[in-house]
C-alpha cells in the first residue's frame, strides 16, 4: 500500500451522449497521483476536468481505459467495490452541499459517521476536533444558513476530512470565495492533507493558489497537455 500510487490512470477515455450527439470529453488520459501529493488540475471550462474528477471519485462508470484507485481496478467494478472506495475518498464541491437541516457539527459528523466501528462519542469528538481545526469552534451549533460562504466551505472541508480519507477530490473549492478567504481555505486544505498523508486532486481556475501544488496538470479538450513540477 505504501509504495502503491493513490490513483493510476492509463489511456482513459470518456464520452457523453449517444449516437450522433456523442461527444468525447476525455481522450486517452494517463496520470498518476502518489500518496500525500497535492495535484492541481487547471484548464479552460468544458475541457473535462470535472469529468475526470467524477470518474476518479467512482461516481461514473468507466467506459474505456484503466483507472485504479488504491490499487482497485475501477473498470467494471461492482457497486459494492465502488462504495467501499468512495468511503476512502473525501469530496469537496464547488457549492458546499451541506445538509441544510443539520448544524455544522452534525454535518461534519455525517462524515465521521461513515467510520461505523467507532462509538458515537468518538465520532462526535472527531467532528468537533475537525471543526476546531478549521477554526469554527464557536459556530458548531449553527445551521448552514447562519454561516458565511467561507465558513460553509470550511465545514465542507471538515466534513470531507472527518471520514479519514486517503484521497481528497476538490472541485473549485475557492470559486465562491473572496481571495483572502480562498487563500485561507487552500492553505488549510494543504496543511490538513499533509498531516493526514492524504493525496489531493484539486480542480481550480484560480491562479493565486497555484503555488500550493506539488504538481500542476493542465488540460485542454480532454487531453493532458503538460505537467509542471
Amino acid at each position, binding site marked *: 500500500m505504501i509504495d502503491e500510487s493513490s490513483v493510476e490512470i492509463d489511456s482513459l477515455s470518456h464520452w457523453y451522449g449517444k449516437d450522433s450527439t456523442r461527444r468525447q470529453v476525455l481522450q486517452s488520459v494517463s496520470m498518476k497521483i502518489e500518496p500525500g501529493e497535492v495535484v492541481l488540475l487547471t484548464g479552460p471550462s468544458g475541457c473535462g476536468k*470535472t469529468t475526470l474528477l467524477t470518474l476518479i471519485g467512482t461516481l461514473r462508470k468507466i467506459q474505456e481505459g484503466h483507472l485504479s484507485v488504491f490499487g482497485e481496478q475501477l473498470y467494471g467494478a461492482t457497486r459494492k467495490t465502488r462504495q467501499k472506495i468512495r468511503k476512502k475518498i473525501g469530496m469537496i464541491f464547488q457549492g458546499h452541499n451541506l445538509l441544510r437541516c443539520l448544524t455544522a457539527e452534525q454535518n461534519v459528523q455525517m462524515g465521521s459517521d461513515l467510520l461505523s466501528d467507532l462509538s*458515537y462519542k468518538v465520532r462526535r469528538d472527531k467532528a468537533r476536533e475537525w471543526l476546531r481545526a478549521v477554526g469554527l469552534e464557536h459556530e458548531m451549533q449553527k445551521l448552514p444558513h447562519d454561516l458565511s460562504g467561507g465558513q460553509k466551505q470550511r465545514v465542507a472541508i471538515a466534513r470531507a476530512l472527518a471520514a479519514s480519507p486517503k484521497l481528497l477530490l476538490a472541485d473549485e473549492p475557492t470559486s465562491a470565495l473572496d481571495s483572502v478567504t480562498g487563500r485561507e481555505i487552500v492553505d488549510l486544505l494543504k496543511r490538513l492533507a499533509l498531516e493526514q498523508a492524504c493525496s489531493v486532486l484539486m480542480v481550480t481556475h484560480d491562479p493565486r493558489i497555484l503555488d500550493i501544488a506539488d504538481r500542476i496538470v493542465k488540460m485542454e479538450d480532454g487531453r493532458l497537455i503538460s505537467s509542471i513540477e
Partner: protein
Amino acid sequence: MNLNVWNTRKIPLSWLLLTRQPLRLFVAIAGICFAGILMFMQLGFRDGLFDTSVTVHKLFDADIVLISPRSKSSISMSGFPRRRLIQSMAHEDVIGTTPVNWTFVLWRNPKTLSTRSILALGFEPTDPLLTDKEFSSKAKSLTNPGRVLFDELSRDEFGPISKWFRQGRVVETEVAGKRVRVTGLVSLGPSFGADGNLITSRETFLKLLPNTPSGSIEIGLVRLRRDADSEKVAKSLQLSLPNDVKVLTTEEFIQFEKNYWRNSTSIGFIFTLGAAMGFVVGCVIVYQILYSDVSDHLAEYATLMAMGYQIRTLLGVVGREGILLSFMGYIPAYLSGQALYLLVRNSTKLPVVMTYQRASLVFSLILIMCMGSALVAMKRLVDADPAEIF
C-alpha cells in the same frame, strides 16, 4: 447490547429532516391527523350503528333466544307460538324462560303532543327480563294495568319524561291511543332502529295492541344452568322443536341483528367507503409531503451518496420519516377521535366508543399510508445522481 446500540447510533437524520422544517411537518401531521380522524369517525359511526342496533339485545337475561324464522331484524319482528318456549323447558339444562312481546307503538310526547314511534316490550312482571339487578323491583310496579317503565336514555323527542318523573310529577301520556302512566325509569339506550324504549306488562301490552294473538310472542328468552354449553343446547333445541321457531344463542341473536344492518342496508358500505376516502386523502397528503421532501433534498442525498453512504441507508432515512410521521400524526388523531366520540355520545346518545381493535386498525392504516407513500417517494431518491453535483 443496549449500550452497544447507543454507541453505534448515528445522527438522527430523518428526525432532523422533519423537525427542521416545522411548517411542512405541521402540514404533514395535520393531513395525517385529518385522515385519521376521518377514519375514526366513519368506522366509529359504522361500528356504533352495529353496536347500537343491539343495545337492548345485550341486556336480556338469557343464554338462548327463540325467534320466528320470519323475523328479519328488530324493526320487523314476527310472532311465533308461545308453546315453543314451554316445550323448550323439557330440556334438562333449561332452568327458566321468559316470553317477550316486541313491537313498535306510537308514543305521544306529553309536552308537545306530537307522536313518535317507540319500541315496546311486554313481559310477565314476575319473570326475569334484564340482567340488571334493580330491574325486578321496578318491574313490580307494572302489575297494575296501564303502567310502563320508560327508558331514560330515549331521545329527547319523546318529552322530558325522566326530568318530570324525577321531579315527582305524575307522568301520564298516550301510547297507541291509550292512556298510560310512567312508574319508573330504566336505562336501555336508543338504537338506530328504535329512538326510545318502554317496558310494560304483558297484560298492558295486549291492551295497547288488542290485535296481538294471545298465544303469540316475538322473542323467547331461555336461561340455562350455569355449567351448560349454550351452543350445544341451542343445537339440540333446534332439532327437537318444530321449524316455526329459530333457536339462537345470545351471541348469535346479537350477530343476527348486526348482520341485518351490515348486509341488508347500505349503511355499512357507506361508512366503510367514507373511511376508505379518509385513507386515500391521507395517502395523497403524505405522498406529497415525502415526495417534495426527497425532491428538495435531492442534492443533499446525492452528496451523501458521493460521501460513501449506501442507497440502502438513504432509503432507510425516507422509511424512518414515514414511520415518524405515522406516529406523530396518529397521536393527535387518536386524541381528537376520543374527544369527538365524547361529543357524538353526548349529542346523539349513540354509544360510539374507542375500542382497542379500532384504535389499532386505524394505526395500521396510517402506518400503511405513510410507508406506502415513503416507498413511492423512494423512487425519486433513485434519481439522485452523485455525478451531477460536481
